[in-house]
């Protein structure tokens, strides 16, 4: 085992543990904090994949914005947060079985795939050229349409969430 492999296993273990805690802990605020740890672990795995840009974006967008938004929402709905009772539905074992089956199926199917054990080649220099990616996003022959659709989606979400969350009684 190389150091990188050990490091990856360590990161994966921490991330998965934090993920499990995030979906199972009783206090919702703790769940949010576990989520942040999970997201951080994911960011580290992005870094191991030599995608520094998305690692940074992961930290900035997910941890910096989305997770904080969640924390705010939790604090806003604090009054009814029943932290004392069970936080899982009564029949929680059904989804547990389901996801276990799904996991087995996924891994089973994937293991038959020819590229399952593929090893990374050396990353070409242009792959980590961020400017190229940025230009492609605004190039009419490349990804400008998805890029614009994404902007419209964000705008729509912005307007929609303001509309939905506005208190019309007041």
């Amino acid at each position, binding site marked *: 085992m190389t150091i990188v492999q050990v490091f990856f296993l360590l990161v994966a273990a921490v991330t998965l543990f934090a993920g499990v805690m995030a979906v199972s802990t009783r206090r919702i605020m703790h769940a949010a904090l576990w989520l942040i740890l999970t997201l951080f672990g994911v960011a580290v795995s992005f870094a191991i994949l030599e995608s520094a840009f998305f690692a940074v974006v992961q930290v900035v967008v997910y941890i910096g914005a989305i997770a904080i938004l969640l924390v705010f929402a939790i604090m806003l709905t604090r009054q009814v947060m029943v932290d004392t009772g069970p936080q899982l539905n009564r029949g929680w074992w059904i989804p547990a079985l389901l996801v276990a089956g799904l996991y087995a199926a996924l891994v089973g199917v994937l293991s038959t795939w020819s*590229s399952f054990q593929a090893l990374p080649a050396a990353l070409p220099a242009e792959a980590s050229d961020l400017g190229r990616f940025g230009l492609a996003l605004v190039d009419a022959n490349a990804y400008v349409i998805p890029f614009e659709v994404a902007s419209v989606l964000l705008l729509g979400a912005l307007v929609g*969430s303001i509309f939905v969350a506005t208190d019309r009684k007041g």
Partner: protein
Amino acid sequence: MIPLSWYLIFAAALFCTGLFGVLARKNAIAILIGIELMLNSVNINLLAFWRYLYAPDLSALTFVAIVLVAAAAETAVGLALIISVYRRRSTVVVDDISLMKG
């Protein structure tokens, strides 16, 4: 050198964890947390495939960016819905929100 399989297994595990959260948790915010986990596992997959199989191509990266945007939009709308429901019905437990019951 880490084989691709490690990433895939890791991502699948994270996805299943998130899915469990979505299916089993009572609290709507916790469900959102589960969704975030699932989206993250998708991103790990996308980046892993890019790194191992399609390296200089930019499609995968665009997908990752779009998933990030979609996640942000989904969280914003989802939380807005939760806050709106909370204002009207003073609850964030999804089982209590069953107006569509047959």
